[in-house]
């Protein structure tokens, strides 16, 4: 589904990703871990199409198309979803209006007709239940006045509504208490199928108790330096990142 080859990306002239390789197949969950400043969030931003980053080398194939050539909105329409680490607030725009606009833009891109108000509301009801999101939050302004946990649940709710092929969760566990973490993880697990894939970017092993990855990758200094089964996460939790740093420092 996703094949990243020798990806180099920089911001303001500073190289952050330095030849990153990663392959994700449908039905898989990949966890990307690594110390602060390793480039985890940069990877998420580059894949989603944030303009500040300059791609200097490498390629990203997304289901047979060149992802890097696509506009940000088209990547989303092709089924790439990013759950933001810091979801932004959009005052005065209701969550439902925002999502209906998004859903209809995606449908239009795929040559489908707009969703009816009735079907849409039914979908909202069904999907908000997955993350136990209060129906009231659906009608409030996007993320405005939401608690940290509500914002993250709202991200997963949006993911459920838009039903992406590839979801990237950027530090979705940060700032969550244990209950919210469980709810968010449950949501992600419920949405998992053999047709979609998930990349979980996280700092801590904790989330991976709930979202069990097929592969764990260690991102350090702009490259994936170690990959392994889910047990690698436990090893990292136990030993920290220093041994990785020691091994790969140059």
């Amino acid at each position, binding site marked *: 589904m996703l094949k990243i080859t020798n990806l180099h990306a920089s911001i303001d002239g500073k190289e952050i990703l330095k030849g990153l390789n990663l392959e994700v197949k449908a039905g898989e969950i990949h966890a990307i871990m690594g110390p602060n400043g390793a480039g985890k969030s940069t990877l998420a931003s580059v894949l989603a199409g944030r303009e500040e980053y300059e791609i200097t080398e490498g390629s990203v194939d997304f289901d047979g198309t060149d992802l890097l050539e696509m506009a940000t909105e088209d990547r989303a329409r092709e089924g790439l979803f*990013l759950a933001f680490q810091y*979801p932004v607030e959009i005052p005065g725009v209701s969550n439902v209006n*925002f999502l209906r606009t998004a859903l209809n833009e995606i449908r239009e891109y795929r040559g489908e007709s707009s969703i009816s108000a009735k079907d849409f509301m039914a979908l909202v009801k069904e999907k908000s239940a997955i993350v136990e999101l209060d129906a009231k939050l659906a009608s409030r302004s996007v993320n405005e006045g939401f608690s940290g946990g509500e914002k993250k649940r709202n991200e997963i709710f949006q993911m459920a509504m838009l039903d992406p092929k590839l979801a990237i969760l950027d530090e979705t566990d940060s700032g969550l208490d244990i209950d919210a973490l469980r709810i968010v993880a449950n949501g992600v697990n419920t949405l998992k199928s053999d047709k979609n894939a998930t990349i979980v970017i996280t700092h801590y092993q904790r989330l991976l108790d709930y979202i069990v990855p097929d592969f764990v990758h260690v991102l350090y200094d702009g490259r994936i330096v170690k990959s392994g089964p889910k047990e690698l996460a436990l090893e990292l939790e136990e030993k920290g990142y220093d041994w990785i740093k020691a091994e790969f420092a140059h």
Partner: protein
Amino acid sequence: MSYTENDLAKDLENSEYKFGFTTDIESDRAPLGLNEDIIRFISAKKEEPEWLLDYRLKCFKIWSEMTEPSWAHISYPKPNFQGISYYAAPKQTKKYESWDDVDPEMKETMAKLGISLEEQQRLTGVAVDFVMDSVSVATSFKAKLQELGIIFCSFSDAVQEHPELVKQYMGSVVPATDNFYAALNSAVFTDGSFCYIPKGVRCPMELSTYFRINEANTGQFERTLVIADEGSYVSYLEGCTAPQRDENQLHAAVVELIALKDAEIKYSTVQNWYPGDKNGLGGIFNFVTKRGICETNAKISWTQVETGSAVTWKYPSCILKGDNSVGEFYSVAVTNNYQQADTGTKMIHLGKNTKSTIISKGISAGKSHNSYRGLVQIHKNAHNARNFSQCDSLLMTDECGAHTFPYIECKNPSAKIEHEATTSKIGEDQIFYCLQRGISEEKAISLIVNGYCKEVLNQLPMEFAVEAQKLLTISLEGSVG
């Protein structure tokens, strides 16, 4: 073959025939310039009573001794007041008995204004008094309103049919001496709308007037007078559009609202006159005086969405004369390219327990300048007066400007006045968030801007709110920088 005088005469004759004109109609456009004779010409054309001509002449004298105000944060070439024709009637002056009689071409023009009159009539039951180049051409739902004793007609008709009301209230809220443009309007106004709601009557439909500036080089001097008698209610909509013009057109309207005891007037405006092109060429100059007076327990609410005009100078205000009266001002002003807007409100608290609310949302794009100018004045007898003001500015680019000039004058220590102001730049993070959800940049801006203006748009009647949202989007197309 040479073109002879005879041929010319024949051509003129033919064309007159073709358009069904009489020779008199040709002179339905006043010669350029302004003097007492022109005023007499306008008054005669409109077959006005003597008292109105006298009023006009008095106002002209006042205007002649005034100078154009220069305190606003706008700069523009001063209009040449002697280079304007002060009266133009449309080519067809016939009054229509029913909607079916209206010229199809005119209907088409109205359709181009965004919402067709027919659609409005069918969908919403809005009664529309359509003003095209100074003369009313269509009035609908008149009969239904008549049953309730509501008068909704052109200003000219009101002068003929209800002179006592016009005489009593015209100039009572905005006297000719108020300002340069009000004085000019009082001298040369051509037409406008008049509305009277009798005691205790709740007007069952939104009353609406569409203005459109049509003929090149014609100043528009509209006059609107809305009187809500004791205990009555009316919601009045005013929307404006104009086709593209290269030369600046002057518009100086006067709107007066009178809310008697326990009455309520809701006055909504969507204004999208031609703002000039991308280089700042052309566009409408809009110098408007709008003011209402509230008697005891009365309420006046102004809502405006301003996206058009090259220059806007406009301060819909409330005089809160009666005890417990309420004034509200909700405004969205958008400026793009080289547009300039200096707009806001005045809340004059005279009575006890008077309350006012000001919500102003300015959006600046391109190289435009957008100023909020507001005055909250609490007089010494206005015990327990309350005001809340919120002035927000949203910047779309690095080259535009947003300015806030709030004035507060308080002479009563029991007053409570709150003022909040924010300035923000449209967030790249917000746009990226929308893009990542599959929403195009244009739609994203539209969503964000409409969300930002929601408090104001919510004040508009439904069908107007939809039009206003579209307008905001159109006005800001491709404006993020």
